[in-house]
């Protein structure tokens, strides 16, 4: 099986290059991450992030044959050869397949992603009906892998101003939470031409999300809520 892998070590390379690897002894049913481990056994200088290996920690998002995804849950037999693996687009490259995620995390923190309640705390749990809780399904499962935001042209052009799909999904996760009481503040924070409204519903985010979440829909919901809030 043939692989073309993005290599760049700022200590020795003037510019990035694609390096070819061939694995003779690999099971087509294995995941791309298994192949990367095998390549790293041969060439320990290949650098990439990984941890859980089962699609829940969000470490190993990368660009696979032109499409963002998680290496650990992408089966090799779903990919056309040569398999081209590059770092997530739109973020500074640290080395090989490792990008600098700081701009992405910054946007996440900017939406104040924590439950905010102004009322005095009861001694028991806040009550929430199963139907209210259902509103959080499809939102809280986000693993912050960055696949969506780095597939978004609006985020590429304005990573400093547009919050990006991942952060906006989180924003909606709290706006949709029956327990949260910071609706006005959250909406206010997203006003203006960029933070929310740079989303042009291109839907790349939804297309690539490895957890099957739909940030475009969440963004639409925020826009609707904002309109309702204004009148």
């Amino acid at each position, binding site marked *: 099986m043939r692989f073309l892998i993005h290599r760049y*070590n*700022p*200590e*020795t390379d003037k510019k990035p290059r694609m390096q070819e690897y061939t694995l003779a002894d690999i099971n087509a049913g294995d995941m791309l991450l298994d192949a990367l481990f095998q390549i*790293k*056994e041969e*060439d*320990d*200088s290949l*650098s*990439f*992030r*990984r*941890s*859980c*290996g*089962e*699609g*829940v*920690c*969000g*470490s190993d998002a990368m660009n696979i044959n032109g499409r963002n995804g998680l290496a650990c*849950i992408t089966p090799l037999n779903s990919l056309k050869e040569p398999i081209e693996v590059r770092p997530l687009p739109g973020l500074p490259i*640290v*080395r*090989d397949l*490792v990008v600098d*995620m700081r701009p992405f*995390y910054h946007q996440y*923190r900017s939406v*104040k*992603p*924590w*439950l905010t*309640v102004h009322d005095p*705390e009861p*001694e*028991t*749990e*806040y*009550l*929430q*009906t*199963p139907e*209210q*809780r259902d509103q*959080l399904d499809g939102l*809280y*499962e986000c*693993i*912050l892998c960055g696949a969506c935001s780095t597939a978004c042209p609006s985020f590429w052009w304005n990573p400093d101003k547009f919050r990006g799909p991942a952060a906006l999904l989180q924003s909606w996760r*709290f706006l949709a*939470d029956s*327990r949260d009481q910071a609706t006005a503040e959250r909406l206010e924070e997203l006003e203006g031409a960029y933070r929310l409204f740079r989303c042009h519903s291109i839907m790349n985010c939804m297309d690539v999300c490895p957890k099957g979440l739909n940030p475009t829909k969440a963004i639409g919901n925020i826009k609707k809520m904002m309109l309702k809030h204004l009148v």
Partner: protein
Amino acid sequence: MSALDIERRQFDTLVIGAGGGGLRAALQMSEAEANVAVVSKVFPTRSHTVAAQGGMNAALGNVMPDNWHWHMYDTVKGSDYLGDQDAIEYMCRAASHLVVELEHAGVPFSRLANGKIYQRAFGGQSRDFGGEQAARTCAAADRTGHAILHALYQQNIRAKTHFFDEYFAIDLLKDDDGYILGAVVLCIETGEPLIIEAKTTLLATGGVGQLFRTNTNARINTGDGIAMALRAGIPVQDMEFFQFHPTGIAGKGMLITEGVRGEGGYLVNKNGERFMERYAPHAKDLASRDVVSRAIAIEVREGRGCGPNADHVMLKLDHLGPEVIKKRLPGIRDMAMTFAHVDPIDTAIPVFPTAHYTMGGIPTNRYGQVVIPFEQSAEEAIPGLYAVGECACVSVHGANRLGGNSLLDIVVFGRAAGNHVIEYLKENRYHRPFNDSMAEEAMQRIGQWQKTGEGESVDSLRAELQKAMEHYCGVFRSKEVLTEGVEKVRTLVARVKDARLKDQSKIFNTARIEALELENLMGLGLATVECALAREESRGAHSRVDYPERDDERWMKHSLYHANGHIEYKPVRTKPMTVDSFPPKPRVY
């Protein structure tokens, strides 16, 4: 590079590890306005807490009557009477309050029709001290760890905790009076070392599941904090007790939560027989994990396994119906479809016992203080050093952890340790003097891997270790096999010094991190196999075919393994805080 040239930072308190334990402790301390540094080798939400599925135990009694005291009984029994009963009482009493705290912090728990937190049945749970099945596990579908970890990280952002993301901890700093003064860490991105001075250091680095070839753990679970403690002269406790989860996906290892059986799933052998009825007539599939894992291993050994190689059993849940599976178990459905290529809505999942959880670890008391035997005292606190969560051994899990007690453990003792640190900081207002020699050993460890030339690869040594641990130190053990295992692992440990890295670059050199992790794994692999050979009884997860019975007279004690190979023992704390102790009795489910 000498220690003199290294950048130094000062914080009131240092937390190493950003899983649930580290983040819960950090939150407590940040809210008390301590200046907190959290060092993590991965971005916090990538920590392994994120993979916890089924839930967190607390006797809220939302589904049926429950009581913290029944939870305590189950935990003591589950621990096979090796758990420390003061710590267990503390944990079970605190549980309900801490679940409510997490809910207030934003955790999206699943809900009951009345709006309260959803609770499901889990293994080893009973009402009324061994009576009917309880439903004590608070769940956010089957992504409870993810929900808790993200909420704790979010609350730490709010509380302005200072994060050092993608920094790898090398070793602790210790002065001549035995105080721990922080740690030497390595910035993974730049490859530069950094000294973090702190009045207290809290280890929350998780377990060491990577000791075994097939495991449910993340690649990062290499026992770094436990190994750092061992190198700092602290003996490690009860390392022979390693939990094998009954239901890892066969041959691959991904975890399939006990919550599947809690929701009504069950195990069958090749004859379609629900075999747990023979091993645990009362609790059946919801017996303790050690019991279920042994039962599966016996079924396979006696030829009743499934598949072409008869090497696994099946976990059946199609009878639960698509609604329950989609609502309560969506994550494991994904996992089964991705890795076992079956949809559990209509097909059973192939499973086999898989290395899962480190019951042993750094010895602590219930305040999270690291304690070691000193002169007349069995438990003398090391000033400035704390440990919580899977890397610690309080010990609330003893010889076998109950499902749903690990998420509980990390928040209960994360919070308790945070509170104790706050008190400690009041008494110890100033940093103790730092001197360069404290960082020397850590720098030597880094330097060791700068040797070039021919040598073994880190990957092959790790693979050999994992294979050896699986072969010599698995579900069933014996003197003969363990003796060979000790020899084998000793040989592997000796070979580490001849290993070489080809990649000598600095920036994001993950090969170097894996080399440092390998040293941690090796030290702990040897501790595990040595302690397993020494303990001549069967208790909880430690099952010796040559000593099939539990032996309370000789062995109801904790083992303490020193870096030099010496093993000593200390008594179990059988006296709870306020209630009567639960004396050991035969353990049947």
